């Protein structure tokens, strides 16, 4: 977390909440993408992203700047919101199913090559939930292992190991 970001957070915590807009602008795209990968639908993604930022605004005074990354904290909020979404609809969250069901929507439609589409689906389908999560956070969100560790509550070493196994599995599927 940069010094500038820390200062912005401290100002927010002191009641100067106008500064929160800076954080929103910085993280909107990342959080949107993260949620979209998890739910696959634009309208649902928008609802969850809105809830995530409004919740963060409300709770920023309780954020411990010494202990956590703001990015990880924000991902965690959105992750909880996604879980809430599936819990409320009594649907078991499964990334491969989401991608399969939403195959006609814009998540995969831009992957023009049919072979590539099939390959991507095949890759995601057999991964464990924790492996899918780390693929999203590490490759798509470009989070560091420290940040990933804070979001999924596993050690950095464990996160690295999960990612390595996920890659090995994907390689096998390609073979």
């Amino acid at each position, binding site marked *: 977390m940069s010094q500038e970001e820390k200062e912005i957070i401290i100002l927010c915590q002191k009641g100067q*909440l106008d500064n929160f807009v800076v954080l929103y602008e910085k993280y909107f795209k990342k959080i949107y993408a993260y949620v979209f990968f998890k739910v696959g639908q634009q309208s649902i993604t928008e609802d969850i992203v809105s809830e995530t930022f409004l919740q963060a605004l409300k709770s920023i005074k309780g954020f411990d700047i010494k202990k956590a990354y703001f990015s990880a904290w924000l991902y965690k909020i959105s992750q909880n919101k996604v879980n809430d979404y599936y819990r409320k609809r009594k649907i078991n969250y499964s990334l491969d199913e989401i991608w399969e069901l939403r195959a006609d929507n814009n998540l995969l439609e*831009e992957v023009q090559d049919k072979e590539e589409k099939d390959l991507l689906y095949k890759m995601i389908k057999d991964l464990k939930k924790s492996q899918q999560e780390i693929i999203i956070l590490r490759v798509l969100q470009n989070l560091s*292992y420290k940040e990933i560790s804070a979001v999924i509550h596993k050690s950095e070493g464990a996160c690295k190991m999960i990612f390595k196994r996920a*890659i090995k599995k994907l390689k096998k599927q390609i073979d």
Partner: protein
Amino acid sequence: MEEKIKEEILNDLYETDSSLKKDEAEILKIITLILKTKNKVSYNNDYFGKLKKEIIQAIDKEKTSFERKHLFYKHLSYSLAVVCCCFLIIFLYPLFSQKDSKVLVVDNSQIIESTYPEAFGEISITKKDFVDGRGSGDISIMSEHQYKYILNDDYEINFDLAPTEVYKTMPSFNNFNRNINEIISLDSFENLQYSHISLTENKESPFSLYINYLNGSLTISKTMGNINSDINNISEEDILSLANNFINKHKINIDRYASPYINNNLSSSIAQVFYPQLIDNYLVYNDRGGFNSLQIDIDLNKNEVIALYNYNFNPYQASSYPIVNNKEHIQKYLNKLNQGNDPEQELLELNLIKPSFGLLKTFVPTDSVSETFHVPAIIFETDNDFQNKFVIPLLLSYHIEDVN
């Protein structure tokens, strides 16, 4: 940018497992494919602006709420400050005011709670248990001579006037708790035992107060500097005034004490003023006929009070006991005493005159601590300078035990 991400991911992987290097081409293919989906995720700009507006509105709402809360707490803190000031003025001012000092948290009223007859069980008194406030002693040992006690027939004894109750000194914990409980609930603490308080004035040559709640006594003494033995000429009247002024200044309640008398030893630089103790309006005596007294010491060089000793504020429990109610018993008691004299030694006749009744302070040892009782007694004046008073306990059991 994308290339940099790929490179970082690869480096992390090789750090974990260097054997993956040989599969770099396949791994890069996988990462590239996943990253392709990333580039295709687009969001609606209107939505981005709409959410931003929503956040700004929420911030404004939050700020208004914060300002309202801040204003409320500001007003609340002012109000509380005013209330606290009023509280401090109303409740604490009297404690520190010279005029209405209540620093001495003592109960000045004499509390005597009556209980059933002979409630204290057998009270066996021997002469050695007599108390003079500074230790006990046997009359025969204390005296240099042997006495023959003679009861003067010129005086009638009206036993209707005699006290009939034994007064037992009770611990004053409850008395203390009653006062302090107006400030804090001592009952909420476990097995709390209060024994004494020490207080000292914050000034040069201060008075120190020692309040003992176990025996219900108060001592006040001044820390002395250099003692000057020069003595001012001061009348007894002025000495009494100094003592009484000290008592009045500190609002020391002396309802439990009789009129004072002075022991002014001309060779001493300190005069002593005694206020004899009263229980139920009976004077309290020690075994040698001296009064159990509140004592005030006065420095005759500076003409000021330097100490107060033996102020008593404990409550009592009273229980009626059979007592001697005729002159014959007294005579029998005296005969018994006289019989114990050594016939070889010279006897001095001690005429017992002017009988009066009072209470004899005595200690009765128990398994743990000795208990203090004040038993009915008859007190005679004598014509002897060495022992000018003679005290006889009136408890019937004592006489039966002693005479038979």
